[in-house]
């Protein structure tokens, strides 16, 4: 922020100015948190859904895939089916990362559309001391919190199902968070470009998220796929997140440089999506 002294030469009535500067100072500093506060208040109105999906999905998926499907896989390939661990242990970190993606696909789409268009609360925020970039920050903060809660609950169920052989499994929760946010930030930026939803958001679900889940080494290692399909995994944040989560969950063998690539790739996507979304929001609100 430019300092006050820059502007005193403009001949400013000092008391009015001082009041304005004092009142805006807190928002300049904490505005993102105030926006997050708003989102939390809204989330409270659908808290049941948040908790139900956070508890229900690990139960359903870990049981159906990890126990049901796993008995088939392990029955055919032996107890150390993939990477030398059980199929359940192989699958669980991928499902954990997918659960973060699921939160992202919910929270970074319709609420953005809502704020710009259906119930233009972003314009209301922008008429207060809040700045456009802070709106985006606040959304990222609030979604990160929900994602962290979801992933932590998921991880507890992984422990219950005995799907975490390694001692550093809990780090996979943070990896899942990074994965969800990296993907989500891009989706958020894309949503911010939409003037109207004529089905684009449903298309993202069907033609981006679903194929990504299928071809990101979630249910089977990427190298099982023919080479001409493997690129889907390489560009997919979910693949990078899943692989990294496996490294921590059961010590999947992987060269250290590749683990670094996962982190950097995800961080880069997050940065690009975040900055792009902030830019688009400023452009749209300050017209």
């Amino acid at each position, binding site marked *: 922020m430019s300092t006050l002294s820059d502007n005193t030469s403009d001949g400013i*009535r000092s008391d009015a*100015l001082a009041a*304005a500067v004092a009142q*805006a100072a*807190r928002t300049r500093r904490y*505005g993102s948190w105030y926006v997050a506060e708003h989102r939390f208040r809204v989330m409270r109105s659908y808290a049941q859904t948040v908790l139900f999906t956070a508890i229900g999905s690990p139960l359903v998926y870990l049981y159906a895939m990890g126990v049901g499907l796993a008995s088939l896989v392990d029955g055919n390939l032996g107890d150390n089916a993939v990477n030398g661990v059980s199929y359940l242990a192989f699958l669980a970190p991928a499902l954990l990362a997918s659960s973060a993606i699921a939160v992202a696909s919910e929270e970074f789409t319709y609420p953005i559309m809502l704020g710009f268009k259906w*119930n*233009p609360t972003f*314009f209301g925020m922008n*008429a207060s001391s809040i700045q456009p970039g802070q709106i985006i920050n606040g959304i990222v903060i609030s979604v990160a919190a929900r994602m962290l809660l979801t992933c932590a609950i998921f991880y507890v169920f992984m422990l219950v199902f005995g799907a975490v052989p390694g001692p550093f499994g809990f780090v996979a929760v943070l990896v899942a968070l990074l994965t969800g946010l990296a993907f989500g930030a891009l989706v958020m930026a894309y949503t911010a470009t939409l003037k109207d939803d004529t089905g684009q958001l449903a298309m993202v679900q069907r033609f981006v998220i679903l194929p990504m889940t299928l071809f990101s080494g979630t249910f089977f290692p990427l190298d099982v796929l023919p080479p001409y399909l493997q690129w889907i995994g390489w560009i997919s944040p979910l693949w990078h997140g899943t692989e990294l989560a496996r490294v921590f969950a059961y010590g999947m063998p992987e060269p250290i440089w590749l683990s670094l690539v996962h982190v950097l790739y995800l961080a880069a996507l997050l940065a690009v999506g975040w900055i792009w979304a902030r830019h688009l929001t400023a452009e749209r609100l300050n017209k």
Partner: protein
Amino acid sequence: MIGAVSTRTSGDLTVLGLDPNRYGPEIRSQVGVVPQENNLDMELKVRENLLVYGRYFGLPRARVARRADELLEFAQLADKASAKVDDLSGGMKRRLTIARALINDPRILLLDEPTTGLDPQARHILWDRLFRLKEQGTTLLLTTHYMDEAEQLCDRLVVVDKGRIMAEGSPADLIRRYSSREVLEVRFGSTQNAEVAGRIEGYGERVDVLPDRILVYSDSGENELERMTAAGLHPITSLVRRSSLEDVFLRLTGRNLIE
């Protein structure tokens, strides 16, 4: 632009002595905005809308809560505090939007067509609230298409047509300058108006022939009517009224339909 959300294309602007391009949050901390379209948060309850909005200005929770209750009282919405926004009537939503705009004790309140689309009762309640604010020393800056609204609320008025300032002054001053004291409205039937018009040229200060009626601007409408009757003209209906801002507005901006 005054609300420090739109960047100006050229020229200089200061609000409270500050440049909006650099001091947006500072200026907005001193301004309340009531936009033309309510953008209340439909996902939150009535009182929550105020609580959340107060926090955007960095106000402490306890202070926002106290202020929210005062404002609900002021906006006559205290019994609706925990209602859903969607369940409010148009007038109530408008009052809630105004209450929200006041949560930060703004020095200037910007209102964009505050009573458009409201029924007469709701308008009068709103005018009463706005007038009280004015009495308490809040500066109101409002745009309106309703000349009666401008007459009720404005100390100083600027008539703008196609982006150009046509006139400015107090309502009474504008009426004095751009209209007569009284207006005589007569109807001869739409087929006769044009014909009659020729015969009353020079009546009053000015004569306006409209498709459905003829307006004679004069210091005394009664005198003009007598003169008309004496000349053998008998209008179907006649009405003498005081000149209003609407006359000023139509005189300044013309009667052609502006879409």
